[in-house]
């Protein structure tokens, strides 16, 4: 069974400062990894994904994440945040081999950008 741990439930950060949102996963098989963002009263939107290849993945809105297999991590980073980045961020894992494309989500990290 797969699981995802998002180590921080809330992260406050000042505008234009860098941010890292941490995600660790457990899985016995190869995985696909994802970050989704959820703005208030909206559904989830895909930020970026790792399926294979380069371990550094770039996504929308200036976000990037690095897949680290040895540490089973997939941390999300942005060098300079904006007020509009205030949202909840979810890390998710999918079994890369089963083909069912089910996602298991973490509990989320609320990012608050302070002006």
């Amino acid at each position: 069974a797969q699981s995802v741990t998002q180590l921080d439930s809330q992260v406050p950060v000042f505008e234009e400062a860098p941010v890292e949102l941490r995600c660790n996963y457990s899985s016995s098989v190869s995985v696909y990894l994802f970050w989704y963002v959820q703005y208030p009263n909206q559904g989830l939107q895909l930020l970026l994904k790792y399926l294979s290849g380069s371990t550094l993945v770039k996504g929308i809105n200036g976000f990037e994440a690095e897949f680290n297999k040895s540490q089973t991590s997939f941390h999300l980073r942005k060098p300079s945040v904006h007020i509009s980045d205030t949202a909840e961020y979810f890390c998710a894992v999918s079994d890369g081999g089963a083909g069912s494309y089910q996602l298991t989500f973490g509990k989320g990290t609320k990012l608050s950008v302070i002006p």
Partner: protein
Amino acid sequence: EAGVAQSPRYKIIEKRQSVAFWCNPISGHATLYWYQQILGQGPKLLIQFQNNGVVDDSQLPKDRFSAERLKGVDSTLKIQPAKLEDSAVYLCASSKGPGELFFGEGSRLTVL
């Protein structure tokens, strides 16, 4: 391209009443999911359809929840009878590839 449509956006019911949520996925997406998102938690998969067949409903509380996807397009999720702990946002998503789920805006259920 139209996104995933869900209705209603908000629903308030008394416990033991019934409720139904509707979802229309993105055209051409064969896979459809229903997730439950309780306040403060990540989405939890309730059921996954591939076309009009069920792939996984292992986490669906079948004594009160049911879902169908007739003709492999839109889907309905029903809760009968509702319990207080069913208060949540019910998210519908569709996909055509690995993990690329496209979510609707969700249906927020409050059970009093």
